[in-house]
């Protein structure tokens, strides 16, 4: 599509959407959000880009094939489930590490759940982009 307004708006929207998708992913565990929603928002950034410029441009902006992104995400999610093997707990049991935790302070929570969410983020983003790019190129 050749529209000056869309092109200009996309330049601003794409980084905003990407940052917002990260924000949504990170707040996910205790508040509404998470990897799935993050992935959806993140993929809209690239979809905007593909509509405003071209699918080829969007593909090169993504740098990595969407299918590959999805499968890497699947691998990460699987890995997150496997972390509990080290602690001899049931598969996909959340493992938490609170960095710098003290008496009153919770610290920075790092968990296998976060890794799982990142995996979901990549699967959703890769899957949707693969489909949308295929649709765009087919028409």
């Amino acid at each position: 599509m050749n529209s000056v307004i869309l092109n200009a708006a996309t330049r601003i929207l794409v980084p905003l959407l990407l940052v917002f998708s990260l924000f949504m992913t990170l707040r996910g565990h205790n508040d509404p959000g998470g990897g799935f929603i993050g992935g959806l928002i993140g993929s809209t950034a690239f979809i905007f880009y593909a509509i405003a410029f071209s699918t080829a441009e969007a593909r090169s902006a993504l740098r990595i094939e969407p299918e590959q992104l999805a499968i890497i995400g699947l691998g990460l999610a699987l890995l997150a489930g496997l972390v509990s093997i080290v602690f001899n707990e049931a598969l996909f049991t959340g493992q938490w590490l609170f960095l710098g935790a003290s008496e009153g302070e919770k610290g920075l929570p790092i968990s296998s759940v976060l890794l799982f969410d990142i995996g979901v983020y990549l699967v959703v983003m890769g899957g949707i982009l693969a489909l949308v790019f295929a649709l765009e190129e087919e028409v």
Partner: protein
Amino acid sequence: MELLLSASVGILVAAAIYLMLSRSLLRFLFGLTLISNAANLLIFASGRLTAGAPPLIPEGAYAPVGDVANALPQALVLTAIVIGFGLFAFSLVLAIRAYSELGTLETSNMRLAEPRPDLRPDPSTATSNETSAG
């Protein structure tokens, strides 16, 4: 409220079946979207409705306070929507491919994989069915 939801499920299913009886693949797919949304709504209604009480645990508590909405059907519906979305997107791509490869979206004309038995098979298509040597 359940009554309203049940009625809309019924209307959606009726509309979907009308569309799915069509011979056009595209109409069929639209019918399929409608009926899968009807199924989602059905699951949602099956979980009973609790208005205005999201199943969130307030800060500092270990369990939700008071009566909250049933979260399970919501989770099920979310999963079903995601899967349905993926399947629908796939079938749309497939429909476009079918249109460009077969030149039609009329399901009664799609007989390439199941040709009429009285027609003598064309050797060229018979061998093209076989996979090429790896």
